[in-house]
């Protein structure tokens, strides 16, 4: 992705040591050792700026939104809708195109239901890929079962890239939606989403991008991408859990049926039938995660303050360094060697189970994820039980990667004795 490599010379350097002080959890010890947190692709840590925003909300704002006439309710509504604008601006979308969800998973399920109910019929085809997270597979399998539609998978190469020629062959008059990940959570691959979208649009097929692993690392512009649906999770961008975003183009949202029924999403309720609000409220039944929504905008402000380019530059340095150092370890094979990658290095060591490596790294205070990372089809394809996945953030350091490399060597020594 161009944002990862452009203008290295002029992008400012992050003051990582000072930034680390803003994340209280980074100074805890685990099994008596300083924490090295390399599980950022699963969830990111939170800066004080975000943590304090949560208590400030409950101390000074807490009230329900969109209903009361009283001061606090209008204050909460105001902050809730201002947050929507902040998030919209971040993605270069209109606020009406931003739907609050519980996370990426719910965002995808929402589209699978609300778009699927209207636009998918028997025999239609939906294209996803072999590198999808389970949350971008299962909702489509469920939709296809419900509608007797067909799910097609774009295959991937040994290095972990989409086979674009195969994708072109899969696109047909039957295709009604393409749903792929922007960045792979288990391989780190940054997919050529501009090309994926252009090819689909040439056949009038809308595209959903799972941006859960992209928004923490890449500047995303939904207008420039011309993407139809885009989603991401708050907790992976230094915000709270239980909040996520679905962007949808108004032209689709207006046609889609509600996802859930309840308060907030209705215009009028009669005993015979009800009418619904315009998007986005149509898709936000019930009292929303008000605190989460407001604090997600705070987290995005925090990231923008650091600068996405500066974040990307530092993370790329970590990725390159980790790739080089880990690759030098005898018997270590990196899983996912795409040309363009987010800061994720997943690997296996010949003859050793990823679980064993993970347990030993944990004893050394190093948090990694082991297993299939909710992408079982990738593991089946590569015939491996899983990988050890390290994923970096802007608050990680070169010294921490050195600790990891020493830890991996120690684990090998212990396990191969």
């Amino acid at each position, binding site marked *: 992705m161009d944002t990862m490599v452009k203008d290295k010379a002029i992008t400012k350097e992050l003051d990582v040591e000072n930034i680390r002080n803003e994340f209280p959890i980074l100074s805890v010890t685990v*099994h008596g050792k300083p924490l090295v947190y390399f599980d950022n692709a699963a969830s990111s840590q939170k800066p004080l700026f975000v943590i304090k925003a949560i208590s400030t909300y409950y101390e000074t704002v807490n009230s329900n939104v969109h209903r009361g006439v009283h001061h606090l309710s209008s204050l909460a509504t105001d902050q809730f809708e201002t947050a929507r604008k902040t998030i919209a601006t971040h993605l270069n979308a209109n606020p009406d195109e931003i739907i609050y969800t519980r996370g990426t998973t719910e965002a995808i399920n929402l589209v699978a239901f609300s778009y699927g109910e209207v636009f998918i019929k028997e025999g239609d085809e939906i294209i996803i890929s072999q590198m999808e997270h389970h949350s971008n597979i299962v909702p489509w399998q469920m939709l296809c079962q419900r509608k007797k539609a067909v799910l097609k998978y774009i295959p991937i190469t040994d290095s972990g890239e989409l086979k674009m020629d195969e994708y072109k062959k899969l696109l047909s008059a039957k295709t009604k939606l393409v749903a792929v990940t922007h960045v792979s959570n288990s391989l780190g691959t940054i997919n050529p989403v501009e090309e994926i979208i252009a090819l689909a649009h040439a056949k009038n097929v809308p595209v959903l991008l799972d941006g859960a692993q992209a928004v923490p690392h890449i500047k995303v512009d939904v207008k420039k991408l011309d993407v139809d649906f885009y989603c991401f999770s708050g907790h992976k961008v230094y915000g709270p859990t239980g909040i996520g975003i679905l962007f949808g183009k108004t032209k689709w949202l207006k046609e889609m049926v509600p996802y859930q029924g309840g308060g907030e999403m209705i215009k009028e309720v009669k005993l015979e039938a009800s009418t619904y609000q315009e998007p986005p409220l149509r898709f936000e039944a019930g009292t929303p995660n008000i605190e989460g929504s407001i604090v997600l905008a705070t987290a995005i402000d925090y990231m923008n303050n650091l600068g996405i380019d500066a974040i990307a530059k530092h993370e790329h340095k970590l990725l390159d360094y980790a790739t080089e150092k880990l690759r030098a370890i005898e018997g270590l094979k990196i899983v996912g060697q795409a040309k363009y990658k987010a800061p994720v290095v997943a690997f296996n060591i010949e003859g*050793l*189970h*990823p*679980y*064993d490596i993970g*347990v*030993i790294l944990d*004893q050394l205070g190093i948090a990694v994820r*082991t*297993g*299939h990372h909710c992408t079982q089809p990738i593991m089946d394809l590569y015939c491996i*039980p*899983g990988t050890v996945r390290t994923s970096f953030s802007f608050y990680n350091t070169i010294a921490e990667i050195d600790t990891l490399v020493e830890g991996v060597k*120690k684990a090998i020594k*212990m*396990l191969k*004795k």
Partner: protein
Amino acid sequence: MSIEEAERELVGEFELFDDWMAKYEYIIDLGKDVPLIDEKYKDEAHTIKGCQSKVWLHSEVKDGFIYYTADSDAMITKGLVAMVVRVLSGHTPEQILSADMNFINKIGLHEHLSPTRSNGLMSMIKQIKLDALAYSAIKR
């Protein structure tokens, strides 16, 4: 040796180690001594599925005592499995059912029993208890 005695013996062996590395190296070593399951039993029916590492377990009753053979694809899991097998193998279904498995806590390995570890150890213990229950029912 009773289950309690076998537990005490194992806990005693671990008391010799004062650092985690030695402890884990010993777990790995114990795994090498597990009575290995016959390859022919490494099928779906004998697989205990953790999310990450696999455990295979076979049990049979001889003269009223249950004997286990097992294996795992991960070395640390295999060591943990070996410990469970060593403590419980060769006892009656009733004795196995009443074992509290507290030795795992005493050795400081309780975190390996958490479901988030998904290493199959917890499911294995559950399976052992279910088998023991079934055997004791048959006996009755």
